[in-house]
């Protein structure tokens, strides 16, 4: 039986994921968008861990918080940083 506090953690993570994806899409500076996308991927990995999928959480933590923001950051460096 899960306590109330453990369920509050999952609701906070779900709110953080939705708020992170909306906040990332309204940024004008694209490097801020890259940082927020990294934290959103990390929150998604923590939610996978809370939903009893430990192996998927490890893969998502590596890819979603390090590799994908790195790829987007390389793209931003090779194009322009501010949105026209």
């Amino acid at each position, binding site marked *: *039986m*899960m306590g*109330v506090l453990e*369920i509050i953690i*999952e*609701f906070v993570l*779900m709110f953080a*994921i*939705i708020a992170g*994806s*909306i906040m*990332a*899409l309204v940024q004008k500076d*694209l490097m801020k*968008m890259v940082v927020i*996308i990294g934290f959103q991927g990390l929150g*998604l990995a923590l*939610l*996978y861990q*809370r*939903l*009893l*999928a*430990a*192996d*998927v959480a490890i*893969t*998502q933590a590596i*890819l*979603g918080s390090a*590799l*994908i923001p790195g*790829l*987007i950051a*390389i*793209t*931003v460096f*090779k*194009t*322009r940083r501010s*949105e*026209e």
Partner: protein
Amino acid sequence: MNGADVQVWSFVTAGLMFIVGLYAIVFMENLIKKVIGVMLIGDAVNLVLITSGFKPGGIVPIIGEELYNNASGLFQGFADQAAYSLPFALVLTNIVIGASTLAVLLGLTIKLYQRYNSLSVTTIFKEDES
């Protein structure tokens, strides 16, 4: 509040992520933000599959120490408590495929910027017609 509420609201979270990603693909002006919309839709599908395998009050599908010491009821206890682990294996493949698709999309974005010197879809369409 109990564990079944977590499952329902996790489905709702996946639906909201799908809506946000679809809005980004259709209405955003910048090409990188459209690519991020594709990534959000892929994450939403992964979250739906993970949530369908979730069991409220269950354990991670790994045989731990106290379950192993209870050797007489080992299989019975594992089948009763563990989460359903087939969607986890599928999602593990889908995350890696999604990352490589994202890399290809970002490479195409760089090539479009080198050709049209802009990331805005309106400018790219206008220069393509002229």
